[in-house]
């Protein structure tokens, strides 16, 4: 899972040394908005700019950091409908169909998860964001056609309320 904020106590990978951890802690609230942000981070934790750049590049290359950049607020950008769409896919086809679903721009997450039979039969989950419900339904129809999912049982779970989006805890 990709997260913008790391829960308390989570930063414990043995592959990170003390200086990596200090750097992760220094950037997790965001990058400084100034012409030389990595020099500024270095200044805060007593590290040269070159070392900050070299360590961050390593963290990216080894996928501790998936990417640098912005995190958007879907709702404020006009994406007011979100649905979790779940599919009951034969286990032998999950990888193929997962990759097919994952190629669409409007699908922001696509995961295989365990079934919980008999109550829950679905094993492939994706998130679709749209401006309204009709747009989301249109997206579902499109992927059914494009990925040949006509015979695969699915359900669309629209969100009604978001209760909680946790702030930072360090």
């Amino acid at each position, binding site marked *: 899972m990709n997260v913008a904020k790391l829960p308390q106590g989570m930063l414990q990978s043995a592959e990170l040394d003390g200086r990596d951890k200090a750097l992760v802690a220094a950037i997790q609230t965001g990058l400084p908005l100034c012409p030389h942000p990595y020099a500024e981070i270095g200044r805060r934790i007593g590290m040269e700019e070159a070392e900050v750049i070299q360590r961050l590049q390593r963290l990216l290359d080894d996928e501790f950091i998936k990417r640098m950049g912005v995190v958007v607020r879907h709702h404020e950008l006009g994406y007011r409908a979100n649905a*979790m769409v779940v599919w009951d896919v034969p286990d032998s086809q999950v990888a193929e169909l997962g990759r097919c679903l994952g190629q669409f721009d409007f699908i922001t997450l*696509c995961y295989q998860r365990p079934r919980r039979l008999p109550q829950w039969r679905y094993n492939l989950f994706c998130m679709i964001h749209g401006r309204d419900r009709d747009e989301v339904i249109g997206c579902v129809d499109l992927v059914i056609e494009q990925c040949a999912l006509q015979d695969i049982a699915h359900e669309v779970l629209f969100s009604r309320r978001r209760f909680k989006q946790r702030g930072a805890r360090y």
Partner: protein
Amino acid sequence: MDKLDKKIINRLQKGFPISDSPYAEVAEQLGCDEATLIQRLQSLLQEKQLTRFGPMYHAERMGGAFSLVAMKIAAEDFERVSEQVNGFAEVAHNYQREHEFNMWFVLATESKQRIDEVNAEIEQLTGYAVYNMPKLEEFYIGLELQVS
């Protein structure tokens, strides 16, 4: 939000350089100057159109554990149970969805074992079963939406 704001958001969802003058680099690609880019980003963050600007972590690589958990709550108990569930610090976010399984939340903890412990505590406190559905495989991790 004007055209330049949208270009900035679309560009910065794809990544940000790690170099000595990263804003200048991106500004040049967008056809604006460095100071404008910095000022626009500042405004977008202040107006909360962006939640943040910085790293996205691969949480499992960092040493943590996550799971998606579903519950089926009777309508008359929904408020009580949602308050109880949201009271756990390990519950990262929680959505009510239109389905018999009407509560869906993400647990974020420092270990796999702690996921199981929190789920057991939630069952005991609420009197409802939890259905733990951790990720088995990931097929896309884009989280990118075009602004137009």
